[in-house]
Structure formats: structure tokens, C-alpha cells
């Protein structure tokens, strides 16, 4: 099975995909000509063409064309054979440190994952088993334990619990880390014993910034869950919140200084509620003026209107701010006078020490502000009558109206609250980043990723989504083999995870399953 001559491997790699492409194109188009009482669905013929062409070339395609009853069983067997072949190559290559095995490593896991995620859920469906999470488990299992996942899931078709997912997910993470360590022995993320501190540092960086990301994303998800629209003004509301806080602090400081005769600077913590209050009113006014007609049925193409009107609102805010505040970067004073918190180096054993670990003081403070606000929002949504009203409206507007909840008011409240949260996150970050009128653009793009990753409309989803994005970005930038690219690709790492999660769980991590 192991081909030692690398030339033939390359030929195989070249010819296989070629026949696979031909099979993918030809076989589904032969559907009408294939002699069968019952037509085979197109996706199965596509897979058969792909696998048959890759494994046996023209022979496989001819076989499936003439003997269609073999398609189901033969594609499974051939797929497993291909995966076994690739896996054996992986073992050979990994064991030989002189041969670059990245290609093989990259090929084997996803190949088993693709096979398992194709066949296993269909098998669950055929035997009428509970196929909830079967796709995710099959893909994760294929990636981590290869053919063994067929043994585990095929015969007994077990119900996939959360424990399964945790075990398989952890195993996958460990495998990726191990493969990465084999390929990049000098990388700070794997270099023992130092890597523990470094990974902890990067994870801490990610959690801190992730909590701040979450706060902004929570507002977006709240608006979506109640109104069913995505606010394209969210980034600008975040930006203007920062400016409201900045100018409030400036003027409050001046007034207090004049009154007392001493120079007084106001702590930026006070700017957060002020900015939130002003933008709450702005959001409510905008909703009443421009979004209410949409909910009242006065707008013909409501979803397009919502995109355009919120986009326009954002535009007006950004350019008005530019005209008033100017283009020069501004920044508020610190929350706290501690530049950074340092967890000192600690000798754990004779050979192993942990630390030092640094967290920038203002970021830690902003993280706490973010967490407090998110939990405050959760409390409001779960424990107050108005919050429950919002949740009820998000689930079923008509049913909510029957119980005495006014959906119109709830729509306004949701948009105002969402805008307020964006503004408060801006006010929490203006002591941390240089603030310019277009500062919201980068942040809002990330918020959309977080909201979809966490599950549209889910507040806990936005919280965890933000933390995940923060950690993935930090680890991606910190661990990329080429430091010069790690920083440049920072946002791409989050998008990679985003794509992967959507592939395996299209509703997002905490999204509601469609009825």
C-alpha cells in the first residue's frame, strides 16, 4: 500500500483528481441512463463519481455506470481504502523527520472527516436513529480517530451527547497542537517548558480583548433577535459612544476645574453611562422615525430597506462626527493608573517555572466593565418583566402581543438597548485605543462574525463567540510559524474558525435550531 517512489505519488495525486473531476461531472449527468428501478439522488452520484474516479480512474466510473446497485457500498469501501492509503502515508512521512509531511498530515484528517461526515449521518437517517449532532461528531471523529469513528458510530448509532463532542473536540485540538509541534519545534507556542506561560499569556490576551468584543456583539445580536434586522450602523454607534464619553469627560473636567480651582480629570468610567444614555435616546428616536414604518407594513421591501436605512444612519453619524471632531486621533485618560498587572515568575518545580504574565491595566478594567454589562443585560432579560417581554417578542411577536406586550415598544427598546451597548463598549475602549471617526469599521466586521459564530440572537452565544474570536486571533498571531505574517493574518484566523463552525453547525454555537 505504501508507495515509496515519490514520483508515482505525484502521478497518483495528479491523475486521481483528474478522474475524480471527470466522474463528478459525468456520473450525475448519466443519471437517466443508469438502469435502476429507483433513481439515485444526485449528491450520491457526485460522491460516487468523485471517489470512484479518484480510486480506480476510468475503471471505477465504468463500473458505477454499468452496475449502479454497487454504488452505495463500493463508494464507502473505496473511500475507506483511499483514506487508509493516505493515513499510511502520514505515518510513514511523520516517522521520517527529513520528509516534509505537512501535505500528508493535512490530507489524512480532513479526508476521514469528509468520508465520515458524508456516510455516517446518512446511515443514521437510514436506520432512523437520532441524528442530532451526528454530522459534527462524525466530522470531528473522522478528523481525530480516522476509521475508528466508523466502528464507533456505524453499528450502534449512539445518541451524540455533549460529552462526545467535548471528548472529540479536545482530542482534535490536542492532535492539531501535536502536529503543529512536530512541524514547528522552535515555535514559542510549543517550546517546552516555556510554552505553558506563553500559551497562557496569549490566551489571557484573547480572553481580555474577547470580552470587549463580546459587549459590542451583544448589542447587535439583541437587535437581530427582536427586530430580525442587522444594524449596519452598529460600528458608528460604537464610535460615537466613544466620542460622547470623550467630550463629556473633557467638559466635565473643565467645569469641575473651574469650580474648584484645581485641575480635575474625570475618570472615564463616568463617560460610559453618559454615552450609553445619549445613544439610547438616539437609537430610540431613529427606530421610531425610520424602522417603525417598516414594522407597520408601510415599506414594501422591508429587509432591503432595513439594510439601506441603517447603513445611511451609520454614514450620517460617521461624517457628522468627522465634521465636528475632526480626523485627528483622540484618546481618553486611563481608567486606572496601573500600566499593567504582572503575575510574577513562579518556580513550580525544579525544572518548570510559570510566568511572568502581563495584562494591561486598562484592558483588564474594560474587560470587567464588559462582563458586568453583559451579565446586567442577562439579568434584565431573564429576571425583569420588560426583559421577558423582549424575549417573548423575539420568539413570537403575535403571541407576545396576545399576552399584553406591545411589540412596537419592544422593537424600539431593543434597538435603543442594542445601540446603547455599542456606545458603552465604545466608551469603555476610548481610553485603550486611538479614536478616529472610522474606528468602528474594523470592530463591527468582527462583531458580525461573533454574532453568527455564537448563534444569531443568542446573548450567551455573543459572549462566548467574542471570547473564542479573541483567543483564536491571539493564538493565531502569536503562534503562526512566520511572525511577519502572524500579525497580518490575525483576522483571518477568526474567519477560519467561523467557517469551520458554520460548516459543522450552521446555526452557530448557541443558535436556535430551525423549527
Amino acid at each position, binding site marked *: 500500500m505504501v508507495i515509496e517512489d515519490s514520483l508515482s505519488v505525484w502521478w497518483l495525486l495528479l491523475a486521481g483528481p483528474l478522474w475524480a473531476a471527470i466522474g463528478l461531472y459525468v456520473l450525475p449527468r448519466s443519471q437517466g441512463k443508469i438502469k435502476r428501478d429507483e433513481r439515485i439522488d444526485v449528491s450520491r452520484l457526485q460522491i460516487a463519481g468523485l471517489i470512484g474516479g479518484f480510486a480506480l480512474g476510468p475503471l471505477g466510473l465504468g463500473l458505477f455506470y454499468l452496475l449502479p446497485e454497487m454504488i452505495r457500498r463500493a463508494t464507502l469501501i473505496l473511500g475507506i481504502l483511499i483514506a487508509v492509503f493516505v493515513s499510511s502515508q502520514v505515518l510513514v512521512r511523520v516517522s521520517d523527520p527529513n520528509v516534509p509531511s505537512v501535505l500528508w498530515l493535512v490530507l489524512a484528517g480532513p479526508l476521514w472527516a469528509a468520508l465520515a461526515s458524508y456516510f455516517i449521518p446518512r446511515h443514521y437517517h437510514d436506520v432512523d436513529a437520532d441524528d442530532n449532532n451526528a454530522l459534527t461528531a462524525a466530522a470531528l471523529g473522522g478528523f481525530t480517530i480516522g476509521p475508528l469513528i466508523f466502528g464507533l458510530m456505524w453499528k450502534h448509532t449512539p445518541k451524540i451527547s455533549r460529552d462526545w463532542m467535548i471528548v472529540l473536540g479536545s482530542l482534535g485540538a490536542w492532535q492539531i497542537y501535536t502536529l503543529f509541534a512536530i512541524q514547528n519545534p522552535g515555535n*514559542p507556542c510549543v517550546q517546552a517548558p516555556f510554552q505553558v506561560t506563553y500559551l497562557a499569556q496569549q490566551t489571557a490576551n484573547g480572553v481580555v*480583548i474577547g470580552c470587549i468584543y463580546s459587549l459590542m456583539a451583544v448589542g447587535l445580536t439583541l437587535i437581530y433577535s427582536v427586530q430580525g434586522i442587522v444594524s449596519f450602523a452598529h460600528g458608528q454607534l460604537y464610535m460615537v459612544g466613544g466620542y460622547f464619553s470623550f467630550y463629556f469627560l473633557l467638559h466635565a473636567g473643565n467645569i469641575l476645574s473651574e469650580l474648584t480651582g484645581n485641575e480635575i480629570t474625570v475618570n472615564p468610567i463616568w463617560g460610559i453611562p453618559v454615552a450609553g444614555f445619549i445613544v439610547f435616546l438616539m437609537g430610540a428616536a431613529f427606530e421610531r422615525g425610520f424602522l417603525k414604518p417598516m414594522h407597520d407594513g408601510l415599506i414594501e421591501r422591508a429587509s432591503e430597506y432595513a439594510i439601506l436605512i441603517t447603513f445611511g444612519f451609520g454614514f450620517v453619524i460617521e461624517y457628522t462626527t468627522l465634521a465636528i471632531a475632526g*480626523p*485627528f486621533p483622540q484618546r481618553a485618560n486611563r481608567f486606572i493608573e496601573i500600566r499593567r498587572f504582572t503575575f510574577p515568575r513562579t518556580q513550580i518545580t525544579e525544572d518548570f517555572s510559570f510566568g511572568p504574565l502581563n495584562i*494591561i491595566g486598562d484592558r483588564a478594567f474594560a474587560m470587567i466593565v464588559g462582563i458586568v454589562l453583559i451579565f446586567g443585560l442577562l439579568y434584565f432579560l431573564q429576571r425583569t418583566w420588560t426583559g421577558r417581554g423582549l424575549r417573548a417578542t423575539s420568539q413570537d411577536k403575535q403571541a407576545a402581543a396576545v399576552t399584553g406586550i406591545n411589540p412596537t415598544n419592544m422593537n424600539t427598546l431593543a434597538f435603543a438597548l442594542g445601540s446603547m451597548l455599542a456606545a458603552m463598549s465604545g466608551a469603555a475602549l476610548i481610553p485603550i*485605543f*486611538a479614536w478616529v471617526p*472610522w474606528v468602528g469599521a474594523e470592530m463591527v466586521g468582527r462583531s458580525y462574525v461573533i454574532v453568527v459564530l455564537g448563534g444569531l440572537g443568542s446573548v450567551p452565544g455573543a459572549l462566548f463567540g467574542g471570547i473564542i474570536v479573541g483567543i483564536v486571533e491571539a493564538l493565531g498571531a502569536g503562534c503562526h510559524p512566520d511572525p*511577519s505574517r502572524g500579525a497580518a493574518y490575525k483576522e483571518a484566523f477568526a474567519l477560519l474558525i467561523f467557517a469551520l463552525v458554520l460548516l459543522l453547525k450552521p446555526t452557530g454555537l448557541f443558535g436556535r435550531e430551525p423549527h
Partner: protein
Amino acid sequence: MKGKSTLASLVVLLALVALLPFSVIHADGHCEFADEAIKIGGLVPLSAPGSVAGGVAMSWAFNRAVDDINADCGVQIGGQNHRLQIVIGDSEGSPERGQAVVERFILEDEVHAVSGVYHSAVGLATMGILDANGIPTVFSEPWNDNVSANGIMEYDGRPPRNADGVDHIFRISPASSMVGGVVVDWLLAEGVDNVVIIAENTDYGQPAAADEKARFEAAGATVTQINVELGTEDFVPILSRIQASATVPDVVRILVTGETSYNLTQQMAELGIAPTVDTICVTNQFAFQSEQYWENVPDGNYCTFNRVGIIPSLFSDIAVGLNADYFEEFEDIIPSFAMASYDALHILADGMERAGTISDGAAIVAAIETTDLELSQGRYYFNYGNHNDSMPADDGMPDYFWHQWPDPVVTMMQYFEQGQSSLDAAVIFPEVYQTHGTGYMAPGEMP
């Protein structure tokens, strides 16, 4: 009868008043202007992702130059005074947008000359269009070496602009290599051996980083280069990586512009990477705007930065006046790109006046090549052009000296007090410009 005569006089008077705007000569204060104004296209970034702060400062300088030139009766050609008019176009810092604006300048606005350009990518993308259409151009801020070098050498598959005998592009901002040379010479004199360069992924950052890296490596120093995207806010993960490296870097050199550079410098200081006793912080010329710098980089004391333009203590009367007006408008010290934009319009106006034409691009170029003007940044002249039989290479000079003002002053400066004005910051290199008798101060030291 008398009533008819009065009525006729009134009609004639009204007709004269109505025709006044259409007369050949307009009176404007003490000057009389010809009907045809000279239109100069000012290409600057006024929207993100461009450096809006830079664009606003350059626009201000253009308008100030236009006011000064018109107050001095505009540009005198053929016995007539022509009013100067600036047409501002927003490049957004994007090459494609810059090209579109330049095409609009040429086809719709029918400009006679162009100036400005902040981002190198915009300069590189638009210079070919401007040259092909015979528009005399004086760039006031792009630094990429090839902006001027493409006059006589092939660049990116494009033939030299001067291949047809006229190159319409001039530059009065420094080439990246001119700045890089000063920074590297100073750092090598300080004995650095382990260098980290953080560069933006642009046509300014990447060539500048490559140039400095080559110079450091030629001197035997070890260089680690990290590329970042403009507009990034959070640099902590990548800075943690620098902090975790086995050897402490001797210097962190930042080749990033705008508010991104402020975020990067501040986060670097907050994490305790630089400036420290072991590691020199070298940020970019944005640090010269001291009001903005201290507001956005409160922990940036003892950072050094390269400064382009005459040092504040040697400001000419023109520079002092400009700086005072700029301070009144923006409450900060005037940046070099604003001074260069002001000067660029004077160079164009002077070229047209000496050429005696506002529309013959080749004649204006020939006149600009022989410029000899004292303006806010010093004396302007161009060593290499069609007026000189020698090419830069003949004199052992790099190709970017073609149509390049050779004398932009590049100095290294350093803050040594929290909240210090850049007018009081120490000039530390070259030695001839040193203001505080020191080549560098480690944190805690005083001159």
C-alpha cells in the same frame, strides 16, 4: 426728457454691473486677474482607509499657499495675473480611487498641474497617468523610492517615464531610503545588534522595511520583521511574541503610520517592551505632532522618532508663520507634509511663471527642473533632470535622485519629558543638528 436720460443711465449702469463678471480682467483688491484661472489638482486622502489627518493637513496647506500666491497677484504670465485655484480630490489612500480622481482632474476639471499625494501606493498608481497626459506634478509626501526612480528606470514593467524625453513627475518629500539611511546609521552608531522592525503592509512600509533590513544585515545585525495591517487596533498578541523571544531586542523600529502607529507604540510601552533601558523605541514622524502624540501615547516618553523637514530651531520666517497659523487651526505643530504641500504649490506656480505658460507641460517641467526657491522647508532645487547631462548613477547616486529634491532634512529626535512639545524635544542625530549634546538618552536620563 430728464427722466428718460436717468432711466437710460440706470439701464446702462445695470448692464455694466451685470457684465462685470464676464469682463476679461477681474479686479481683486489690489490685483487684477485674467479670466482664466490656473487649476491645480490637490490629491489627498480625506476618507478612511487613507490617513485623513494627513489629508486634512495637506488640504489646509494647499489653501494657505493659494491664498498667499493670490494675495501676491497670482501667477504672472504674458503680462496677466492668473488666479490660482486648488481642486481637492479624495484619494481615500487607495490606488484605484487615486487613479479615478486623477482622471477626473484631467478630463473634467482640466487641471494644469497636480500636487499632493500622501500614500506611496497612490503615487505609484497615478504617476503614469499624470505623465502620459503631460500634467506637471510635484508630489509632496509619498516616500517610495520608485516614485522618482521610475523617471529613468523601469519599474513594475513600466518603462522609464523620461523615455519620451519629458518626465512630468517631481518629488520634494524624501525617498524612503533617504530616511532609512539616517535611522540605520544612527542605530548602528548606538551599537544595536538585534533589531525588530514592525512594518505596515503598504507600498510605504514594505519597501522601507526591506531597505532598512538590508542596511542592518549588511552591518551584521540580526533583523526580525513583522508585518501588520493598517487600521489594526490590537497589537498585544504580536507584541507578547516579541516579549517572549529568547533575546531582548536592542531596538523596535516602527514603520507604521497614522493612528495605527499610536496604538502600536502605546501598547508596546504599556507592555514594557520599549522604550526601556535595554530596548530603544523608534517610532515614526507622526510623533512630531506632540499634542496628538501625548494624547494617544501617554507612555511614550523617551521614544525616538525620525523627523523630516527643517528642525524647529532652524525654522525660517515662512515656516514660523506657517506653523503659527497651523497651530491656531489645529492646536499642534505643523507636520512636514503640510509644509511640503505648501511649498509644492509655490514650486509649480514659479515654474509656470518662468515658463511663461500654464498649459505647455514640457515647458513647465523644464522650468521646474531649474527651480531655485527658498521656501518653508529650505532651498529647493533639482540636481538631476533633462537640464543636467549627468544621470544620478554617473555621480554614484541612486536612481531615486532623479527629479528629487535632494535636501530634505532627516533627523532623529527624542522626547525626554512627559508631555513635551516637539519644539523642545532633543535632536539627537545627525550630530551636526544635535540640540542637547547627546546621541540618545535611555529612560530616566536627562540631557
